């Protein structure tokens, strides 16, 4: 379980997180929604330690996310970045098997490659893609490779940062379905940030709406449409009028 308690984070005069409280039960898929610049990515990066919160607690299975063995902590996570964040200088299979080629999860090269090719197949890519470089792939294929890399070491917790941004609706649907299938299949805890409502409906067990540095509403995805929360309602229907200022 991931628990964030009163997490705050400011960048200079800009207060991004103002006491964020969020709980993601083990084995569930939480999707955080909210407008651009509301701190969704910051919240996610705080959990991973990529950004240090100013105050508050972040607990993963009861243990402080900032303490203990960092390598072991990160080995529990997989992450799909918004732009893929594939390493240009490495081939696709080396990207996917990155964690398996070095560090505590190191395997023999042949075995790592085999796992990489299997993960590529799992996300719908053929083995001939394995020896290409990321620059030779389309945006959708890069997202799939990023997804394969995120699941290569069978993590317990997977984070997805804007998984469908920049993709056409059909490819977005494919990625959403893949994410849902993989999360269910692996029994992983998932945290996704997005403002794509089709992703929310496809991926989420639970939804949290982040606005003004705090969670405005959270609950099961089935209750989202009848929440009665004016912030959530405005966001999911994409209305310019409402409590959320259209110009931020």
């Amino acid at each position: 379980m991931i628990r964030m308690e009163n997490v705050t984070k400011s960048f200079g005069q800009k207060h991004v997180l103002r006491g964020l409280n969020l709980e993601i039960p083990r084995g569930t898929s939480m999707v955080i929604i909210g407008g651009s610049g509301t701190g969704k990515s910051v919240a996610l990066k705080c959990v991973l330690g990529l950004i240090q919160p100013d105050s508050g607690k972040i607990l993963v299975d009861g243990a402080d996310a900032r303490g203990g063995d960092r390598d072991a902590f990160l080995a529990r996570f997989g992450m799909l970045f918004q732009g893929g964040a594939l390493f240009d200088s490495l081939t696709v299979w080396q990207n996917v098997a990155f964690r398996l080629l070095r560090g505590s999860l190191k395997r023999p090269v042949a075995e790592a490659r085999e796992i990489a090719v299997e993960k590529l197949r799992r996300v719908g890519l053929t083995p001939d893609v394995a020896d290409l470089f990321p620059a030779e792939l389309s945006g959708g294929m890069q997202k799939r490779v990023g997804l394969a890399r995120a699941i290569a070491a069978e993590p317990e917790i997977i984070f997805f940062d804007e998984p469908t941004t920049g993709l056409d609706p059909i490819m977005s649907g494919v990625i959403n379905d893949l994410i849902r299938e993989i999360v269910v299949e692996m029994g992983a805890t998932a945290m996704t940030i997005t403002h794509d409502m089709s992703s929310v409906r496809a991926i989420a067990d639970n939804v949290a709406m982040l606005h003004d540095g705090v969670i405005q509403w959270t609950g099961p995805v089935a209750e989202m449409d009848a929440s009665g929360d004016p912030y959530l309602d405005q966001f999911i229907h994409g209305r310019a009028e409402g409590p959320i200022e259209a110009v931020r």
Partner: protein
Amino acid sequence: MSLLSPLGWLGRSVLLLLAATGRITLFSLRAFSHIFRPPYYPREVFNALMQIGWLSLPVVGMTALFTGGALALQIYSGGSRFNAEAVVPQIVAIGMVRELGPVMAGLMIAARVTSSIAAEIATMKVTEQIDALVTLSTNPMKYLVAPRVLAALLTVPVLVGVGDIVGIAGGYTVAVQSLGFNPAAYLQNTVDFLEPLDIVSSLAKGAAFGVIAAMMGCYFGMASGRGAMGVGRATKDSVETAAVLILAANFALTGVFFSL
């Protein structure tokens, strides 16, 4: 108020300079500490050795060749004003080995390697590849910075050594082909005049300049701002800072070796 504002500007500039010096010093100490602590990434070190050392050979060699040739012509021309044309071999040798070889190689490395490292790491930062490294349990200081600094420390002295030899060869070619020097006498004068300390100082300068060049590329790359402008600025700042620091270090090291 108007009288105080220049002082305020000066004070702010000094504080910013001191803060930047502190950040670069801490970054450099961390980078060095990661060179000696596991895990090690031999493949990354090998790639950096190739990029910084092997692939810089042509540009360093060509620079040294032309510099040595021009130096021979200048010394001959200047020396002829007081009947000292015969000192061409000695001055080319000492000029190349003590000063021009290391400085020219250092500046060419700053242009070629510092810019490339800064642009590459800054782009990795902008595209979240540095964050991806962290989430994949890989310390960017160990994976990106330490191999490049180590490779520069090892290869730039070799490049400087090669540059010294090529520069002397350039001077020799011009002197023998155009200025009528005796080939054997030219080489004998060169060998007789150079001292071991000249070569040691040249290689030591090479090591220092290599570390400066790689470190500045890595520092400004890691500290890059967002977007294309951030990458461009990181690249520009890295080359400017590396070039100035190389020239300052050259002055300081020359002083040190001068006093020996």
